[in-house]
Structure formats: structure tokens, C-alpha cells
């Protein structure tokens, strides 16, 4: 079975690096981009299985990217990886079509289950988001 293909959209270099390290063993990272517009382009050109999206991205927010990508590629899985732990962000992310929502500080515990859930057609909500 082929490894799932992932695009990482994250503007902070050290978070990019952490994601790269954590994903490399099980996923093919086909692009790493640092802004929202490049994320849309990478999704269009690479057709990844999963688009990992930060919310606060330059030029186009992650939420706006998700809306656009889900409109054109409804089957593409989108998992948000963000520092925003407020419910409003998670709510808006799922409204925009997210399949998963992970809070960065809980990445080690939550990244793998969120990606598995997304690939299995399920949704993953971070327990770290205030309820």
C-alpha cells in the first residue's frame, strides 16, 4: 500500500521542521509551503491525500484555503495544525470543511490519530480545545 501524500502549509520554520520529522517515517511529504496562496497552488498541483494547514498564514488564512480547496477537491482531507485552542477557531475550521483539528502543543499525542481518522473518512477534534 502506497504511503499517503501530504502537503504541509505552515509559516513558522521550526514547526515546519518538527512536522517534517514527525511525518517522514510514514508519509510522503510532497510540498512544504509557508503561505495561504502557495497552499492552494500546492493542493491544486500535487493533489495530496492530506493537506496539513496552519490557520494564521500570510496572504490567505488557513480557513480561506480550506474553503477554496474543499470546493474544488471535496475528497482531499484537511487537517488543521494550529496554536489556536479556542472553540470558535475549531468550529470555523469544520465549517470550512476540515477533517481534523489538532492544537500544536498536543501534536505528539494527536498528530497520528488525527491523520488516521482523516484518512479513514472520520473527523478528529482536539481534546485540547476548550469545551
Amino acid at each position, binding site marked *: 500500500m502506497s504511503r499517503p501524500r501530504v502537503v504541509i502549509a505552515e*509559516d*513558522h520554520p*521550526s*514547526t515546519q521542521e*518538527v512536522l517534517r520529522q*514527525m511525518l517522514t517515517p510514514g508519509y510522503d511529504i510532497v510540498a512544504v509551503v509557508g503561505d495561504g496562496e502557495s497552499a492552494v497552488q500546492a493542493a491544486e498541483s500535487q493533489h495530496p491525500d492530506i493537506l496539513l494547514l496552519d*490557520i*494564521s498564514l500570510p496572504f490567505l*488564512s488557513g*480557513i480561506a484555503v480550506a474553503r477554496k480547496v474543499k470546493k474544488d477537491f471535496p475528497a482531499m482531507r484537511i487537517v488543521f495544525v494550529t*496554536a*489556536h*485552542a*479556542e*472553540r*470558535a*477557531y475549531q*468550529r*470555523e475550521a469544520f465549517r470550512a470543511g476540515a477533517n481534523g483539528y489538532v492544537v*500544536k*502543543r498536543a*501534536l*505528539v*499525542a494527536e498528530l497520528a490519530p488525527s491523520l488516521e481518522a482523516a484518512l479513514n473518512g472520520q473527523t478528529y477534534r482536539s481534546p485540547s480545545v*476548550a469545551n
Partner: protein
Amino acid sequence: MEDHREGADKPSRLQKRMIELEAHLGQLQDSDRQFRVLIDTVRDYALIPFDTNNCITGWNAGAERILSYQRDEILGKPASVLFTPEDIANGNMQLELDTARRTGRAEDERWHVRKDGSRFWSKGVLTRIDDESGNVVGYGKVLRDLTERNAHTRSSLLTLHENEGRRIARELHDDLVQRLAVLQINLARIGRDLPPAAAHVGSELLRLEKQTGMLSNDVRRLSHQLHPSVLDDLGLCAALETAVEEFRCEQNQEFIFLCEGVPENIPPNIATTIYRIAEEALRNIAKHASGPGSLSVIRDGRALRLTISDAGPGFDVPAVFKSGLGIPSMKERAQLVDGLFSVTSSAGGSTTVDVRIPLRGDC
């Protein structure tokens, strides 16, 4: 008998002089009349003479416009009616008169009081008036209402403050919080991958990870207080809903939230104003009220209306307006975007804060 002397029908030198003097007097009278008309009709400045007993002896159109008294009802009244009770009690009014008497003039910037009791910020000068022998016969006060200019300055300062808060909040969130998250992730990864022989290090790593998480939460809280990023990222309704959710969580209290018809493109200063007023009202409720409440923001024609209610116990509104900073600052924020602010409360009963802010342009 006819007078055939040369120049008999011409005016004598005396008559000529008389005619010249009459013309000059006429010019002077015209000039004096023009000057009086100017003083009486100038509307940007209040020109108010007092006598040595500090009783008002004159009142121009500017004074009428700025202070609202009609000429007939103010002439003869003491000048103290124009000063705030605080300035009278603190001796500031007397100091102004003493300075003018001693040095000839006294400049000031202070609050003055209109007929209806409302206050305005003014810049003025009080000038001593002497007769030809140098005796003091009265004083002349010239003042200008700077409320509008002041409001503009305060509005600019507030915008500057909010923009700076937004910039620092972004820096904190987009850089420091990200770096702390990476630190926390790396600590968790090291802890996860520890060989069994190093298990004793695990608890120390866990402690460090938790401390990093707490530090990260503190920075996020600070960033949120400086400027809630949710307001810029997701809009006013999401930001208010988040504030209400946090309130419910912290106070363990029922609180209804409603957001209806709010346009997405409302100007940032209006969104920030509504958010800050709601935030202050929720803070007041957390401190002073109990029981269920509600917060709604709805579009009402060409305006946005924010209403926050609690179940009480209420308070004496005029007393709180005078002594508290919170409610006057909410009112000022609303006024800076041409909004109307009201608060109704009854002792032991409920309290409602109502704000109506006009929308302009394409909103």
C-alpha cells in the same frame, strides 16, 4: 442783500473741520458698531466679560452656542456657574481670577459646564480689564470648545493603542507562542522516545513540558488581552461568542448569546469598539452580578445594536457614572464612533447596557 465776498458760500475752516470730525466720528461709530457686531456674532469663541464681583456683564453668540444659556438669563449671574464644582472647591477658579488680577492674564485648559450640566473641554484666556487710571474694572474671558478636537485626539490615540496592541499580540502569537509550542513538542518527543534505562528522566521532562505549556498559556492570554486575534481572523460574532463561552466557563453561569445580521465587512474600529464594550460589560457582570444573563448583537436598520443584560442586583447609575471608570469609558468608546450608549439599572433589579452604533458606506 447779497453777499459778494469771495468764498462766502464756501464752508469756513471751522465748518470744514466740523465736517471732517463728523465724518471721522461716523467712521469710528461704524468701526465700533462693526467691532460690536463682530464680538456679538462670532460663534467659535465665547467672549464673556465679568465685573469685579465676578458677575457676568456680557454674552455673545459664541457664548450662547457653546454654553447654551441665552443672554437674558445669564447676565448678572456669577461666573462660577460656568465652572465645575470640583474647580470651585479646589480653588482653581479663584486661582485663575487671582492670576489674571496679578499678571493681567491667565490661560487655561479645563472643563466648563453648560446650562444642562454637561461638560465640555475648553481652552481659554482670562484678561484683566483696567480703566484709564489703571484700576481693575472687570475681566474678559475668551474660551473655545475643544471637545470635538479632544474627541478626535482621543479617538486617534485609541486607534493607535489598539493598532499597537494588535501588532504586539500578533508578534506574541505568531512567534513566541509558536516557539513555545515547538519546545513543548520536542520535550514530549524526547520523553516519548526515552530508553527504559532513562525512565527516571521522564518525570522531569514531563514537568518541563507542563511548565512550558503553562508559560505558553500565559503568553496566549496576554496576547488575547492586547488584541483578540479571533476578532480579525473570524469576525465580531465569533469573537463575542468566544468571550461569552469563556465567561460561561469561568463563572459557571448561564448566558444567552445571539448574533444576527452582522455584516462581515464592518470597519475594524467599530468591531473593536463593540468587542471592548462587551468585554467590559462581561467583566462588570463577573464582578458584581449573579444569575443568568444575555448578550446580543443584531443589525437594526443602518446600525448595530449591542445589548447586554444581567439578572442583578442593580446599582445607582448616576453614582456609578460619577465614581466608576468602566461605564464612562464604555460610553466614551461608543461616542467616539458616533454611537449611543445607555445603561439602565435599578437597585436590586436587573441591569441592561444598550449600545447603538451607526453603520456607514457599504455595510
